[in-house]
């Protein structure tokens, strides 16, 4: 297979690679942007440090994925600072803005994402692209901490009693779940059905999006239920196979290039300095990943 020599890639292989990796990188990059909003705003100094750590990890992972595309001639300038916002392919789960103080949102969002990431990375471990397979290992070890972090918080908030009639942790989690679940489902939506088929056929990933989505649901549904949270889907006990239908999905799905308004604001903010200073090249500080 040609993935160890990017120069030999044909159009179909290139497109499959670009589709797969852009999605991975965009998810991590945009999620990290949102996480950093919690710096200096988290509930305690210690939790501030922990979430900042996860933000940097995700951003570091985005950096590793974007770098894979450098082999096919796409660099940070093309992929982040000068790409049209409509060409980003992240899930709408990661672009949603936070309400001030909505810690339930960030821990649940993190759980949805990290559980999906675990499933997705497992399917990339034996990728036909050697760089992808190699980076998965490093990234997975950091993602494990993220998932445990999210679950630790979920369990504490789900138990949380309120004082003086305020909305309690459990209610806040349920509200966040009702809001986020449709967006979380977009994690497994296709960018382009033909390319999605190529990704699996070419051995870049060893499971289809449908399979990944089913596995994810089989993990998150029982877990959230065990916390006493209600997931807004009907599951037939006798036929647990669950199909994501159109009416469960939000209007904007990210993967197909449709985004919510919040994304365009975010994009303007993170490209602001680059444009203001008329930069033509993002500053590199670290060595190219091996």
């Amino acid at each position, binding site marked *: 297979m040609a993935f160890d020599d990017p120069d030999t890639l044909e159009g179909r292989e290139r497109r499959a690679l670009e589709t797969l990796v852009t999605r991975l990188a965009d998810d991590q990059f945009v999620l990290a942007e949102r996480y950093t909003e919690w710096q200096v705003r988290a509930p305690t100094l210690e939790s501030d440090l922990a979430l900042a750590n996860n933000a*940097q990890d995700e951003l570091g992972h985005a950096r*590793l994925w974007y770098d894979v595309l450098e082999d096919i001639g796409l660099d940070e300038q093309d992929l982040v600072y000068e790409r049209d916002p409509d060409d980003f392919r992240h899930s709408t789960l990661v672009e949603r803005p936070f309400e001030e103080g909505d810690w339930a949102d960030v821990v649940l969002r993190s759980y949805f994402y990290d559980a999906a990431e675990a499933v997705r990375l497992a399917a990339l471990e034996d990728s036909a692209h050697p760089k992808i397979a190699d980076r998965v290992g490093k*990234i997975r070890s*950091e993602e494990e901490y993220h998932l445990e972090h999210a679950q630790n918080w979920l369990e504490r908030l789900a138990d949380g009693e309120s004082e003086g009639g305020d909305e309690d942790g459990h209610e806040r989690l349920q509200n966040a779940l009702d809001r986020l679940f449709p967006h979380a489902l977009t994690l497994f939506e296709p960018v382009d059905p033909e390319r999605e088929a190529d990704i699996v056929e070419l051995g870049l990933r060893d499971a289809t999006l449908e399979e990944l989505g089913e596995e994810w649901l089989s993990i998150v549904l029982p877990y959230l239920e065990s916390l006493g949270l209600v997931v807004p889907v009907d599951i037939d006990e006798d036929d647990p196979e669950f199909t994501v239908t159109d009416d469960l999905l939000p209007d904007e799905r990210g993967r197909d290039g449709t985004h919510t308004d919040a994304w365009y604001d975010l994009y303007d903010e993170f490209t602001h300095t680059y444009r203001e200073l008329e930069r033509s090249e993002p500053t590199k*500080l*670290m060595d190219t990943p091996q």
Partner: protein
Amino acid sequence: MIWEVFRQEESGEYHTHCGNVHAPDREMAKQFAAIQHGRRKPTNSLWVVPKAEVGEIDADDVAFGGTTDKSYRWATTYRTTGEDAREVVESEDEQATAEQQRGDA
């Protein structure tokens, strides 16, 4: 009951773990520790802590410092011009040592 013992050799220094004692309560743990761990080595202060209260997370549980490149958080990554302030140089040296030790581990 087991108590972990931390010794500070001189005022101003850090308490570091030096051993433990078996004792039924805090008062006796302090008394025993004073003899068991303070009678030979220079000692300014001892802390005794019930072992059951010590939580542990180790390198099997978590990859301390992460597994991807974090060189952005080390002074050694940055280029500067001219002579740096003494304390900046000192900090950079300490960081270089820590980086080295992390690499060796």
